[in-house]
C-alpha cells in the first residue's frame, strides 16, 4: 500500500521546551490511524505540523509524496485541497449558517451555480447524518454533536483523500460518540479515505482504529495495531489500557480470539 504520510526524525522545540525529540511514523493508504499520548505529549502539535500550520524545528514530513520542507506555494495550495481537517471544537465560521459553512470552499474554488452548490451541500449534510434543514441554523444554535457533524461535512466537501480529526468524539455523549465512530468507518469504506485522528476514546480505539502511534517523552514509543501496541511495556500504555473499561474490552478481545 502507498505511504500517505511519512514523518522522519521530527523535532519540535518551543523556546526551551522540547515537545518532540525524534518522531517517526508512517501512515498508509486507507488506514484509520490514531495518535495517542498523555495530555501535553504533543499530539495536537504533531497534527498541526502535518497540516502545515506549524513548521517543525527539524526532520522531514512527507505527505502524499510532497516534502513539506521544500514544497512551493502553489503545490502547498494544491495539497491543501486534498485533505480535510476537523478541528477539536469544530471551528465553524460563526457568522455563517451551517449551509454557508459547508459551501464556502465550493464558492471560493469552483464556478458552480448556486442551485448545484445547494444540492451538493444538502446531500453532504445528509451524508454526515444531519437533517439537511439544519443548514439554515447558525453554529451557536447547534448541539455539540451537530457542530462536529457540520464541521465534518465541511471537511469532506471537496472529496479529500485524507482526513485529519482532532479528538472527534471528545465532548460528545456516548451515544453520539458511537454514532460518530460508525460514521467515520462508513465514510472510510465508502470514500476510500485515509484518516488520521487524535483520540482519547477507548471505544474509538477498539472499534475504529487500524493502527496507532503512542507518543511519550517526545518519541513514538509504540506503533502498530492494537495488539502490537498492547504488547509494548510503557508506563503510559499500561496506565491508558489499565482502566476498567479498557480491561473489559481487552478480555473480550482475547475471548473472541481464542
Amino acid at each position, binding site marked *: 500500500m502507498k505511504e500517505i504520510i511519512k514523518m522522519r526524525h521530527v523535532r519540535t522545540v518551543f523556546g526551551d521546551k522540547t515537545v518532540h525529540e525524534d518522531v517517526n511514523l508512517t501512515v498508509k493508504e486507507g488506514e484509520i490511524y490514531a495518535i495517542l499520548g498523555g495530555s501535553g505529549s504533543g499530539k495536537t502539535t504533531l497534527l498541526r505540523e502535518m497540516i502545515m500550520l506549524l513548521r517543525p524545528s527539524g526532520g522531514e514530513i512527507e505527505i502524499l509524496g510532497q516534502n513539506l520542507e521544500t514544497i512551493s506555494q502553489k503545490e502547498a495550495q494544491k495539497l491543501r485541497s486534498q485533505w480535510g481537517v476537523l478541528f477539536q471544537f469544530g471551528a465553524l465560521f460563526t457568522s455563517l449558517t451551517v449551509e454557508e459553512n459547508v459551501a464556502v470552499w465550493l464558492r471560493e474554488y469552483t464556478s458552480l451555480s448556486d442551485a448545484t452548490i445547494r444540492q451538493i451541500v444538502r446531500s453532504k449534510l445528509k451524508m454526515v447524518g444531519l437533517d439537511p434543514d439544519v443548514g439554515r441554523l447558525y453554529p451557536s444554535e447547534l448541539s455539540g454533536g451537530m457542530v462536529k457533524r457540520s464541521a465534518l461535512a465541511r471537511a469532506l466537501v471537496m*472529496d479529500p483523500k485524507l482526513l485529519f480529526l482532532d479528538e472527534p468524539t471528545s465532548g460528545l455523549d456516548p451515544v453520539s460518540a458511537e454514532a460518530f465512530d460508525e460514521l467515520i468507518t462508513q465514510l472510510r469504506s465508502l470514500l476510500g479515505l485515509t484518516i488520521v485522528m487524535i483520540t482519547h476514546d477507548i471505544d474509538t480505539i477498539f472499534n475504529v482504529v487500524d493502527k496507532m502511534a503512542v507518543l511519550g517523552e517526545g518519541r513514538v514509543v509504540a506503533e502498530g495495531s492494537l495488539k502490537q501496541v498492547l504488547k509494548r511495556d510503557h508506563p503510559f500504555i499500561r496506565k491508558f489500557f489499565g482502566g476498567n473499561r479498557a480491561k473489559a474490552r481487552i478480555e473480550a478481545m482475547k475471548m473472541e480470539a481464542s
Partner: protein
Amino acid sequence: MFFMNSEEYIDIERSKESVTIRLGGIWSVESLGSIESLYKKVLPEIFDAKKIVLDLKRVESIDTSAMIFFITMRSELKKIADTRVINTPKEFCRMFRMVKRFYTPSYRPKSATFASLLEPILRIGKGAVSIYYDIVLFLSFIGRSAIAVFDTLKRPSSFRIKETAVNIYSTGVTAIPIVALSSFLVGIVIAFQSAVQLQKYGANIFIVDMIGISIPRELAPLITAIIVAGRSGSAYTAQIGVMKITEEIDAMKTMGFEIFRFVVFPRIAAMMIALPLLIFFADIIGIYGGLLVAKMQLDITPA
C-alpha cells in the same frame, strides 16, 4: 492542474428518434464548473428529444460532488424524455449506489411572491425593533452600572483595586504614545496656522493665549477622549466578548459574582482615573508643540 478539452465531458449525438449524450473524462468537483456550464449549453439542444441515451463508457472517474450533480442531471433529463443509461463502469456504479443513499433533492427556491415584495418593509421593521431593544439595554446598562457604583460606595472594601489598576495600565499608560503624538501635532498645527494670521496684525504675543487657552480647554480633552474611546472601547468589547464566549461571564454569575461590580465597574473607574491624567499629559505636550512653533516662527521665548 491540466485542462482537458471540455467537449470530452459532455458530447451529444442526435439520430432520428433519440439523442445520445456521451459523458467522459474525470468528473470531479474541480471540473464540475465546466461540466455544469457545458450542460447548460447542451440542454436547449435536446429539449425536443423523444428518447435520451446516457452513455457513460468514457467516464474515467467520478467523485461524490460530481455524482450528486449527475443524479440531479439525470432526473432533469427524465422529465424531458425517456432516459436510459448505458455502459456504466463498475466504479461509477459503486459510487452511484453510495451517493444515492444520502442524495437529497433540493428544495425549490421560493419564487418572487407578494411576501418577498414586502421584504424591505419587514427589514425596516426589524431594524426599528432592534434599535428599540438596544436603547432599552443601554438604559438598563447605565442603571445597573450606577447601582454597582452605589454598592461600592456603601462598601468601599469591595472595590476591585487590582482589576482597576490593570485597566488603568492598559487604557491609560499604554495610550500615552499615541496621545502624545496627536496632541503634539495638533499643538504645532494650531500654533502654525495662528502665527500666520497673528503676524499680519503684529499681534505676535497673543499666540500665547491662542495656544494656552485653546489646547487645555478644548483640543486636548477632545483628542484624548476620541483616542481613548476608540482604543479602549474596542479593547473592552474584545475582552468582554471573549469572556462571554468562553463562558467566563456565566461562571461568574453562577458563583454569585455581580458582573457589573467585577467586570464593568473596574473598567469605568479605571477610565475615570486615567482619562483626566491623560488629558493633563496631552495639555503639556500640546502646549509644548505650540511653544516650539512660537519660538521658531515668531521668536517668542518662554522666559
